[in-house]
């Protein structure tokens, strides 16, 4: 099957990067061998690779790297100790998070309990007046009875309406 330049160009980088299947690579290779413009494109990609390789990286000896390692260890702490410390630090963090969530849950429970029991307490507060009322009522009761203006049934009705 003959393939077009357009087809090759859409795959040419993957061809140079060896990212195509062997079959696809073979068909592109045979096209590139015949087509001068596609061949030029492949050549330019390899030339770019060679140009990129010119980026200089200085070489250092073992002594230099050992010195660097000492600096790294000094910054991070001794390797062995560091690992232990990190594990402990992780556990401490987890414990702190757990304690924090426990405290938050406790606060929520307390707040909820306060809100739920508030009407009860109001009721309880009102119930403290009952003995006074009773006392008051009983005083009135005595007065009423002494005055003999109302019957007992009438008194009960009046005194509760007054409250």
């Amino acid at each position, binding site marked *: 099957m003959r393939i077009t330049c357009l087809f090759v160009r859409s795959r040419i980088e993957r061809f140079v990067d060896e990212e195509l299947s062997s079959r696809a690579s073979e068909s592109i290779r045979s096209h590139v061998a015949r087509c001068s413009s596609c061949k030029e494109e492949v050549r330019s990609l390899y030339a770019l690779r060679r*140009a990129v390789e010119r980026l200089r990286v200085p070489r250092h000896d073992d002594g230099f790297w050992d010195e660097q390692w000492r600096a790294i260890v000094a910054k*991070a702490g001794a390797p062995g100790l560091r690992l232990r410390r990190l594990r402990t630090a992780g556990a401490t963090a987890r414990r702190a998070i757990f304690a924090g969530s426990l405290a938050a849950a406790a606060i929520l429970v307390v707040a909820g309990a306060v809100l739920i029991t508030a009407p009860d307490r109001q009721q309880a507060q009102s119930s403290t007046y009952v003995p006074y009322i009773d006392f008051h009522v009983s005083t009135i009761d005595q007065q009423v009875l002494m005055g003999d203006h109302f019957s007992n049934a009438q008194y009960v009705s009046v005194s509760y309406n007054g409250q």
Partner: protein
Amino acid sequence: MERDVRQGTFPIQGPSNGQRMVEMLVELTDAELIRRCQENDSSAVNELYRRYREKVYRIACRIVLDHDDALDVTQDVFIHVLKGIAAFRFQSSFSTWVTRVTVNVSIDWIRKRRRMKSVAFQPVELDGVETVAVKNDQAERVHDAFKLLDPEQRSCIILREIEGASYQEIADALGCSIGTVRSRIHRARGHLKRILKDVMVE
């Protein structure tokens, strides 16, 4: 003493325990070394550093484009490694993980530097091409051309062209899709081809 040696009763001095340990560590795979690191074996950490220090420095040097900064990045990378190795779960190879840390630390470094200098990133422009073309030293021109790429494109093209990583390895290292890697490499090559036209001919 000579007689003792001949009779085999005198202990002949062989390699020290330290030497034997180093020889043994050299033979271990990365995964075995990591397991030892997780058991707080500091010599295993040292061996991993010995294996990867130059690769980390090489990548950092080409991404941050400054030798001194690359040394700082290398230190930061290994500090990250020391901190993270206890939690390493072998979901990728150590090499991929180190590459990812190196690229991320390098990109962070570039961004930090830009913020410090308060200079916003400038995309590749034709003015940049002219400035680069004036320089004679080819290596310096390649260096300056790379400065005009954004850090992600730079990372992709370096991992592909210099480290010889596959698209999948680059995607794993950078935490992006293969499509993204391919398009970054394509754009980076386009910019570099325009800028380094004469360098590529020579």
